[in-house]
C-alpha cells in the first residue's frame, strides 16, 4: 500500500495490476505508466549500461590518474563507438533493419504468450518449452508433407500453435485441478521440452540423414516462410514471420479487448473471485489461457523452424522464451506494447552483434541493458523518483458521493 493512499484497506484483494497494463476494456492506454515510464526505463538502462561500458575499458580507466581530460574524452569516444555500432547494427541500413525484424518476430510472438498469461493473472515462464514443442510440430508438417505453399505454410502455422497449446495446457490444467503453481510447472516443462527435443533430434524419423549430432531434416521449401526482400539481395533474411507476428498481435488485441473470451481472461486475471461470482468457469479459463499462451509461443517456435532456420537444432529456441518475459513486462502486457518492445529487443540483439564485431564491447552488454530495463520497469518508484514523474496512479480517492 502506498504511503499517500488516504484510506487503508487491508481487506482488498491482492493487487496484480503491477504486471498488467493499465488498459481498460476498450484498450485505452494510460500514456504515463505505459509509455513514459518504459521510455524512461530504457533511457536509464542505456545510461547505466554506459557506466558498465566505461568501467570495462581498462586502458582508459588507467588514464584517469594521469590525464583526466584525455580519459574523459576517450571514455566518451568508447561510448560513442559502442552505442553508435549498436544503433547502426540495428537500424543503419537495409540489412540491419532486416536483421532487427528477423529477430523481433519470435520475440513478439513469445512476448505475447507471456503477456496473455499476465493479463489472466498467470505467470507463464514456459514460453521456451512451448516454443520447442510448437516448433517440432511445425517441423514435422514441414518435412513430412509435400503440399502446395498456400496450404503448407498455414498448416505448419496451425501445427506450431497446436503443439505449443498442448504443452501450455498442461500447467494450466495442473493449476486448475491441483493448484500446482504455474511458475514451477512451466519451468520444469521447459527442461522436459529441451531434453525431449534433443532426444527426438537423434531419432531417425527427425534426424538429418548422415548426421550424428542433433540436427533435423530440412523443412521443404513449400513450408518455408518466404523471404520478403530477397529480390534486393538474397542475404537479407527477413521473412514472412514478422508480418505474421504483427497480425497475431492485432489478433491478440482483438481477443483480449473485443471478445468475450478476452473479457473472461482479463476478469479472471484481475479478480478470480469476482470472475467466479460472475458465473465464469475459472477452472476452464486457466486451461484455456495457458493453451492460448502456449499456442502463441508455439508460433514463435514455428517462426524459428519454418522461418529463420529451416530446420530444428538442439535448443533452437535459444533464450527467446525468457527474453519474452522481460519483453512482456516492458510492453506492459499490452499486445502493441509487446510489439514495440519486441522491435526494441530485436534491434538490441541485431545491433549487439554488430557492436561486438566492430568494437571491443561484447554483446553481453546488451543482456545487461535488457536486464537493467526490467529492473527499472519493475521498480517504477525508482523511475518516478529519478525523473520526478508525478504519480497519478497513487492519487487519492475521496468520496465522490452524494453531496457533490
Amino acid at each position: 500500500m502506498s504511503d499517500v493512499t488516504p484510506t487503508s484497506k487491508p481487506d482488498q484483494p491482492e493487487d496484480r495490476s503491477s504486471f498488467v497494463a493499465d488498459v481498460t476494456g476498450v484498450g485505452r492506454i494510460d500514456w504515463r505508466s505505459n509509455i513514459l515510464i518504459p521510455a524512461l526505463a530504457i533511457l536509464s538502462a542505456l545510461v547505466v549500461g554506459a557506466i558498465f561500458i566505461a568501467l570495462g575499458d581498462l586502458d582508459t580507466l588507467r588514464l584517469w590518474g594521469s590525464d583526466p581530460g584525455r580519459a574523459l574524452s576517450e571514455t566518451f569516444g568508447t561510448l560513442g563507438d559502442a552505442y553508435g555500432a549498436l544503433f547502426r547494427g540495428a537500424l543503419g541500413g537495409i540489412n540491419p533493419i532486416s536483421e532487427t525484424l528477423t529477430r523481433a518476430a519470435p520475440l513478439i510472438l513469445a512476448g505475447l504468450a507471456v503477456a496473455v498469461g499476465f493479463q489472466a493473472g498467470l505467470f507463464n515462464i514456459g514460453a521456451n518449452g512451448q516454443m520447442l514443442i510448437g516448433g517440432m510440430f511445425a517441423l514435422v508438417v514441414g518435412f513430412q508433407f509435400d503440399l502446395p505453399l498456400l496450404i503448407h505454410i498455414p498448416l505448419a502455422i496451425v501445427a506450431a500453435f497446436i503443439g505449443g497449446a498442448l504443452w501450455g495446457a498442461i500447467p494450466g490444467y495442473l493449476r486448475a485441478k491441483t493448484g500446482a503453481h504455474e511458475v514451477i510447472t512451466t519451468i520444469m516443462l521447459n527442461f522436459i521440452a529441451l531434453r525431449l527435443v534433443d532426444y527426438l533430434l537423434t531419432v531417425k524419423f527427425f534426424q538429418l540423414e548422415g548426421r550424428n549430432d542433433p540436427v533435423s531434416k530440412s523443412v521443404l521449401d513449400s513450408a518455408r516462410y518466404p523471404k520478403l526482400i530477397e529480390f534486393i539481395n538474397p542475404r537479407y533474411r527477413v521473412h514472412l514471420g514478422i508480418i505474421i507476428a504483427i497480425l497475431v498481435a492485432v489478433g491478440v488485441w482483438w481477443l483480449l479487448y473485443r471478445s468475450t473470451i478476452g473479457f473472461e481472461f482479463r476478469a479472471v486475471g484481475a479478480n478470480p473471485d469476482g470472475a467466479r461470482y460472475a458465473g465464469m468457469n475459472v477452472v476452464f479459463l486457466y486451461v484455456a489461457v495457458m493453451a492460448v499462451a502456449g499456442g502463441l509461443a508455439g508460433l514463435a517456435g514455428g517462426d524459428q523452424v519454418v522461418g529463420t532456420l529451416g530446420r530444428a537444432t538442439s535448443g533452437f529456441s535459444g533464450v527467446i522464451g525468457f527474453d519474452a518475459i522481460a519483453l512482456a513486462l516492458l510492453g506492459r502486457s499490452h499486445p502493441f506494447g509487446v510489439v514495440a518492445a519486441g522491435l526494441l529487443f530485436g534491434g538490441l540483439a541485431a545491433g549487439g552483434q554488430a557492436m561486438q564485431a566492430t568494437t571491443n564491447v561484447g554483446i553481453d552488454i546488451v543482456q545487461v541493458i535488457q536486464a537493467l530495463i526490467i529492473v527499472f520497469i519493475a521498480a517504477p518508484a525508482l523511475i518516478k523518483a529519478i525523473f520526478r514523474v508525478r504519480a497519478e496512479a497513487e492519487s487519492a480517492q475521496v468520496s465522490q458521493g452524494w453531496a457533490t
Partner: protein
Amino acid sequence: MKLELKGITKRFPGVVANDHVDLEIETGEILCLLGENGAGKSTLMNILYGLYSADEGDIVIDGKVQNFAGPGDAIAAGIGMVHQHFMLVPVFTVAENVVLGVEPMRSAGILDLDEARRDVEAISNQYNLAVDPNAVIEELPVGIQQRVEIIKVLFRDAEILVFDEPTAVLTPQEVDEFFKIVDKLKQDGKGIIFITHKLKEVLEIADRIAVLRRGAVVGTADPATATESGLAEMMVGRPVDLMVHKAPSHPGEAVLSVSDLTVMNIQGRKAVDGVSFEVRRNEIVGIAGVQGNGQTELVEALTGLREVAGGTVLIQGEDHTDSNPRQIHNAGVAHVPEDRQRSGLILGFTLTENFVLDSYHAVPFSEGIKMDWKASREEANRLIEEFDVRTPSSEIPASNLSGGNQQKVIVAREFGRQVDLVIASQPTRGVDVGSIEFIHERIVSERDAGSAVLIVSTELDEVMALSDRILVMFDGRIVAEKRPEETTNAELGLYMAGAS
C-alpha cells in the same frame, strides 16, 4: 492534557482530503467524529497518529506544537489508536501482544513475560476488562480482542485514545459492554476520540460531536439537543430520510425453498447445519446474526459458489442444489455479494465492464465471441442514470468510485434486469448514509415488484427496518423466527449471542 488540531490541511493529487480542520479535545471527555466514508476522518486520524504529515496546520498539545515523524512520536506524546482492523499477532498470547515492541527486559536482554502478565492484569482489573493475559489471541472473541487493543494502548500510557469505527465488529451486547469501558476510561481522565458513521451511537456516548464532510468540519453539535436526522443532514449535506418506508407485505408463493441444507466451511467443519426456510414473493426475509455464524456459507451455497453437503435448494420449484453461479443467475436470481471489492466488482475494470460482468456472454452485449461494447456502454449509461451512480463517466475504473457508489453499481447490475429472487448480503456495509437510503428503497421496490428478497446483514437495525420476517442464525442453525413488529433489538441480540 489538551490536544488541538489547528487548520490541518492535507491534499492528495486532485483532491483535498482535509481542508483546514480545527478540532480540540481534552482529557475526560468523549469527542465523536462523525462523517461518511471518504469524508476525511481516517486521513485526519492518520495525521494525528503520525502516519501522514499535514500540508498545513499544526498539532498542538498543551500549547506546544508537535512534530510527529511517525506513530512512535505520537505514542510518546500520549496518543493511542485502536484501529478498525486489529493489529494483533493471532498465535501470541494477550501479554505477548500487549508488550510487543516495548518488551520489559530482565538483564542481558531476556524477555520478562511475568512482568508483562502482571501489567496486563493490573490494567485489566483497573478498567474491568476481564482479559486473561495468558489467553491466545486467535481463541478470543472479537470483543475481547478489541479490549486487548485497548490494553495495548493504555500500556503505552496513552492519554488520548482514538477509536476508529470500534463497534463495526461487535454484537449489540458487546457494544453495550464496550460503551461501559469507554465511559470508565473517561471517568479515569482519558480523552476519547470516537470515529463512526453510526448516528445512534454518537448520541448515546458523545460529550461533543464534530461532523466532517468532504474534508472540512461542517458543524458541531451537542448530543443533548441533536437529533439523528439533524446529524444525518449535516453529514450528507441534504435532508435524509432514515426510515424505511414500506407497505405491509402480502407474500405470494415460495420462490426460494431451502430444506435441511448443510454446508461445510473451508476448514471442512459444518458451517450451515440443517437449515430450512422459505422466501416468498413480495416478501423480504432478513437473516440476522453475528458475523461468522454460517451466513456467508449459506449465501455462497444458495448462489452456487459453494458446494452443498446435504439438503436441497429449490428456486421456483426447480432443483438448484448443485447449480453453478451462471445457472442460478439465469434462473432469475440477483446476488449482491457480501464483499463487493473481493467478488462483486473487478476494481480495475471500467464501470461498463462491471455492469456487464455477469451478462456479457449473451445478446445484446455480445454476439458469438464478439463483445458489443457499444451496447454495453448504453446499458452502463442507462444504469448509471437510473441508479444515480455518481461518476464522471462509464469508462473509469470502478476503483475510482466511493464505497457507496461501488455498491450502487452492483445493485444496479443485479436489479437492473427482471429477477424473481434477490439475495443481498450486507447490502449497505461501509456505504454512506445517502446511499443506504437509496439502496433500501430499491430493495423494497424489488419486493413490491414481485420479487422474493433475502437479506443477510450483521446490522440489526437494517434487518429490523427492512424485513417482513426475521430469521436469526447462530452457529449454523436458525435459532429464531420473528416478525419485526413483535420483537426488539435486545431480544434478537440474545438469540444472536446463542441464548435460546
